[in-house]
């Protein structure tokens, strides 16, 4: 009897050891998995940001312009109104700037200023005409060639010049806030992300305005009203499949249908948004249905039993409770749409657009396509700009996800 009992205990003890070992193994594996993903993410972020830091800078030449010597003769009254910049150009400001640069840094440097660099001086003069009577210290972007020379590329003569100017402290890498306010250009010194960012925002607005109401209404109808039969089953399967369709196919659809209906809106945020809305809608429907399903039936019973109609039950009770889930799903779908490139290439959003879009129907670029285009450039100056654009895209995504979390916590109800 006692022998049998001992054996029993031994078996249990050895079994327990095995169980603990299994627990430890599982925990270690789980920890390893998390650590691995954190490492990969950290590596990605660190390389991206270290590259991107350079992307937010540009190479500038520092030199003074002495207007007091009467280099530029212009009537101060001309500095008002919309034509001030033309007036300055007419008065020879570009030459004045180039001359001052040549005087300070040598004749070659005078020709190596970026094309529109004088406009930055012009803007300062327009906002403050008093500068016309004094000496102005400027720091203006140099040409792409000189910027390449700074990095050790291009002709030996320019490289030597760059090294000399760098040693004198005249050629510097300076933070370039204009990157966030300019648009695409052929010169990496002069590009900006604003056009693509604004295009992305407009596109997302169109996507949201189309996909959210349609998706939520479809989810409500399917969950609360539709009878359970073969047709609703087919619809359900179709929606699930639609969410898994490769995005480029939505692009083809947009090309074939939307651009056929609106042939003049090629590359416009309106068409891009409509195409992405097609892609986002199934995600919203699926997450919306799950959120609606998660609302306890007792709440519906309570509302119905008190005499609420079905519409009242849905809009007063079910939807408010499902809203956090719906919004989370929506923003996940929107985030996916924001990072989508392929369908937008199909509808012509890969055009070179040098100005930010005026509205929903003017040609535009979007962030991921801009990144794709810049990464394709041969010019090394675009490499850093590409990283900077990626950081802008990631920050935009982060802001959207932050908004999702805020909204979820704001509307979440506990009971």
């Amino acid at each position, binding site marked *: 009897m006692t022998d049998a009992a001992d054996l029993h205990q031994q078996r249990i003890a050895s079994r327990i050891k095995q169980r603990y070992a299994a627990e430890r193994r599982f925990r270690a594996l789980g920890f390893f998995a998390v650590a691995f993903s954190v490492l990969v993410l950290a590596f990605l972020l660190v390389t991206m940001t270290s590259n991107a830091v350079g992307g937010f800078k540009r190479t500038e030449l520092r030199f003074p312009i002495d207007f007091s010597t009467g280099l530029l003769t212009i009537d101060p009254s001309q500095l008002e109104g919309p034509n001030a910049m033309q007036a300055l150009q007419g008065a020879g400001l570009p030459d004045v700037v180039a001359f001052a640069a040549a005087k300070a840094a040598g004749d070659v440097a005078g020709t190596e200023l970026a094309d529109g660099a004088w406009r930055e001086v012009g803007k300062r003069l327009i906002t403050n005409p008093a500068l016309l009577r004094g000496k102005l210290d400027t720091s203006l972007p140099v040409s792409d060639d000189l910027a390449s020379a700074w990095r050790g590329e291009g002709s030996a003569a320019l490289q030597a010049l760059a090294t000399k100017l760098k040693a004198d402290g005249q050629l510097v890498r300076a933070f370039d806030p204009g990157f966030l306010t300019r648009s695409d250009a052929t010169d990496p010194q002069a590009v900006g992300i604003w056009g693509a960012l604004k295009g992305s925002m407009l596109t997302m607005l169109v996507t949201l305005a189309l996909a959210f109401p349609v998706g939520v209404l479809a989810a409500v109808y399917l969950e609360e009203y539709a009878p359970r039969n073969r047709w609703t089953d087919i619809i359900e399967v179709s929606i699930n499949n639609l969410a898994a369709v490769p995005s480029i196919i939505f692009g083809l659809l947009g090309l074939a249908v939307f651009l056929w209906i609106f042939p003049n809106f090629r590359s416009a945020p309106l068409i891009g948004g409509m195409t992405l809305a097609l892609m986002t809608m199934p995600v919203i429907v699926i997450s919306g249905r799950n959120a609606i399903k998660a609302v306890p039936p007792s*709440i*519906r*019973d309570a509302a119905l*039993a*008190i*005499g609420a109609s079905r519409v009242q039950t849905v809009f*007063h*009770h079910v939807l408010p409770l499902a809203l956090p889930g719906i919004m989370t799903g929506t923003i996940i779908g929107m985030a996916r749409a924001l990072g989508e490139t392929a369908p937008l290439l199909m509808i012509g959003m890969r055009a070179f657009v040098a100005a930010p879009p005026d509205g929903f129907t003017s040609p535009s670029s979007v962030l991921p396509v801009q990144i794709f285009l810049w990464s394709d450039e041969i010019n090394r100056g675009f490499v850093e700009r590409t990283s900077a654009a990626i950081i802008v895209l990631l920050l935009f995504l982060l802001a959207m996800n932050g908004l999702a979390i805020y909204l979820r916590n704001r509307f979440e*109800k506990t*009971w």
Partner: protein
Amino acid sequence: MVTTLHDRDPIDAKISARNVSVFYGDKKAIDDVSIDIATQYVTAFIGPSGCGKSTFLRTLNRMNDTIASARVEGEISLDGQDIYRSGMDVVQLRARVGMVFQKPNPFPKSIYENVAYGPRIHGLSGSRSELDEIVERALRRAGLWDEVKDRLTDSGTTLSGGQQQRLCIARAIAVDPEVILMDEPCSSLDPIATARIEELIDELRGRYAIVIVTHSMQQAARVSQRTAFFHLGRMVEYGKTSDIFTNPREEKTKDYITGRYG
């Protein structure tokens, strides 16, 4: 073998059901039930689990409509009008026949909003002060006013289980129904909260016809004046509560009352 009330105790019927059968798909859940439910009484439905008493209760305010496969045959009338007739407005019916559920299910809104919701959707109050009055009256009748009057803006879900159930009762009576259906209202409550609800049911009886489904025979004996015993989808016996518990006519009832099954 259906025994209705009429033969030994004629009453003033508020709801009368005649030959009611309920199907879930092909399955017959209620088989040929006829019953009259009186105005000023508490009527208890007792019986073992799955006997169909809750199903039958839910036919009385057409809550079974929400179940797609459910089908009702026979005739149920409220004040002589068939509630399953084609022109019957379900919303109006449920305003007249309120319901309290097994698990307290307050809306995740404030206590005030919970009670005010019904009057609001039915347009019962013209002004804010009128609505305040309705809410206060309902909460007083449900015996909850003194406990919550200082925290009407708190969420209804912060109350204890028993208070939540009384809030649900207040919510039901805020629209001034004629009948209140209660589906095992105390099954998730502790004995003290149960006693409080039973007291409340007794207080409300003069004003509404109350139908209560309960698992507990003691509860049926304590709160009801009329009891119907259900078994396997049929109503076996219906009569004065005192008669059912002391002098049942059916062998099955007697077996159930004495604890032989169920």
